[in-house]
């Protein structure tokens, strides 16, 4: 049986390693300077890059983090500090359930609130949808990280006469800061790869745009359009964009875990 377990595990890891291998093999050759600095050319022509999509990803994800991080961390602090009651239990449960909610559903709700009334697709609507996706995730990781702070620290601060709120912010939150930052980075990595909630909010844009009130391209949307499109040139760019997006997500994820490697790596 042990052999079967090893064999099956090997199969699972192999499939995933294959995907990474294919990405590098098919995407790396198309990545050059122009790829990062040029906007797309009209369909059928060769050349062009995804500068607009890279910029768009940065703006939309950055704005989403700006909205989502304070709320998510706030909820997490509540759960860690006051979450032992009935409300805490309910919020924790809802956060877990929302973590599994299909992102496309959040996309159409974002459309209802921010696209339909304004009459146009916008990067802002995309950011809000991504922020909604991020909040329950951050709430749970923040709570988990704050709970790792030893009780003795909290008790020491309280014994010295620190009020609870200052203990919470200055002692507990600061001690857990590395962990909270990790949670935020992992959350950002996750939403950076999201496509479904952006389909009807940020929509995508073939031109370079920096206005959050207008449709904006992201790497994920670009990959979707290019991979499902009919042109070989598009397919080439889709692979390259996928590699870049993948690299971005992996770098953020690895950096996130690096931040807390020493302190929390051994807990699990």
């Amino acid at each position, binding site marked *: 049986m042990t052999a079967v377990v*090893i064999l099956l595990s090997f199969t699972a890891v192999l499939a995933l390693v294959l995907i990474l291998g294919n990405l590098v093999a098919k995407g790396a050759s198309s990545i050059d300077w122009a790829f990062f600095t040029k906007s797309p050319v009209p369909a059928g022509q060769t050349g062009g890059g995804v500068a607009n999509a890279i910029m768009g990803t940065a703006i939309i994800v950055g704005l989403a983090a700006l909205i989502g991080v304070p709320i998510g961390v706030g909820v997490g602090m509540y759960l860690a500090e006051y979450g032992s009651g009935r409300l805490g239990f309910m919020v924790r449960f809802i956060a877990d359930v929302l973590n599994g909610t299909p992102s496309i559903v959040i996309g159409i709700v974002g459309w209802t609130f921010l696209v339909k009334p304004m009459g146009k697709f916008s990067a802002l609507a995309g950011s809000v949808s991504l922020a909604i996706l991020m909040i329950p995730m951050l709430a749970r990781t923040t709570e988990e990280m704050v709970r790792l702070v030893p009780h003795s620290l909290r008790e020491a601060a309280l014994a010295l006469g620190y009020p609870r709120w200052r203990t919470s912010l200055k002692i507990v939150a600061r001690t857990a800061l590395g962990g909270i930052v990790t949670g935020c980075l992992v959350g950002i990595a996750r939403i950076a790869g999201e496509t479904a909630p952006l389909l009807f909010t940020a929509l995508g844009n073939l031109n370079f745009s920096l206005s959050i009130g207008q449709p904006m391209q992201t790497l994920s949307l670009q990959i979707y359009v290019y991979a499902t499109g009919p042109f070989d040139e598009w397919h080439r760019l889709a692979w390259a964009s996928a590699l870049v997006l993948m690299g971005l997500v992996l770098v953020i994820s690895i950096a996130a875990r690096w931040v807390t490697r020493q302190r929390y790596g051994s807990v699990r």
Partner: protein
Amino acid sequence: MTSLPNLPIEGIPSGRPSTETRWQSLLGADRSDRIYRRILTGFALALPALILTLFGVLLVNALPALKRFGPAFLWTSTWDPVAEVYGAAPMIFGTMVSSFLALLLAVPLALSVAILLTEFAPRWLRQPVAFLVELLAAIPSVVYGTWGIFVLIPFLRAHVVPPLKAVFGWTPFLQGVFYGNSLLAGAIILAIMIVPYIAAVSREVLLAVPTSQREAALAMGATRWEAVRSAVLPYGRAGLMGAVILGLGRALGETMAVTMVIGNRHDIGVSVLQPAYTMAAAIANEFSEATTSMYLSALFEVGLILFVLTVIVNAIARILIWRVARGTAVGSRAL
């Protein structure tokens, strides 16, 4: 530290800090503490508000379709925007079948990884592989989809479907010509996507099984595998079940990768080689084309069904996992 005059406690003269008032202030009766608590509570209330808003928006927008088609929406398989007749049966069927096929493929693989990582692998290997699995769970869906279109489907066409058809071609499950985009491709992509997720959560469940359980079995003369089978797995059964159901929830709601390979055809067929449709894929494909308000409303109803389904599935999963690893955010690192 305490500002006594502000304390709303009756009967305690100010300026004389009794032990009781000091205790009260530690409990959060201090005004700034109360404000702090209120602010955090405000944040916390955002989540219940959010889930109610999601449900409310979907429900309100789906109302016209709900009124017009009633429960028959669930088992009607016509989807005709021109005649304004909508039924979600093919999508519900496609969503269910693709997800269950994916589970069938993914569960043995994922559980093996989890067991290997907690029970058999040498210590130096555990942390790096667990880390790798968590990273793989972070690969964007659209990247899996791209891989599915350009690598998986050609591979299936060349090396998997012909031998399958040669051996099992007589069964109704392998009828018809294989063009690539199909239920089979969708299920395989889904399986690959949920393996890291189920593996990461199962691993955390198995880690929560007390060492004493293993030691007891080993002390009775069990081999390591017997200890796993007779002590560890039964102890973590509810949690493992939860991990699998959590994977199911992921698979049900997965959008991009499935949309890119499943073929997107409103049709119910038993052959896995034929194109199919899922609820999430239908919303992704048709939402921006929905020209009439009834069309849009029907898509919102599809979204509502999907939302309610995943909420139920996730709630069940969480309850099961909490039975083993109480209150912990299991799986939050795998995302």
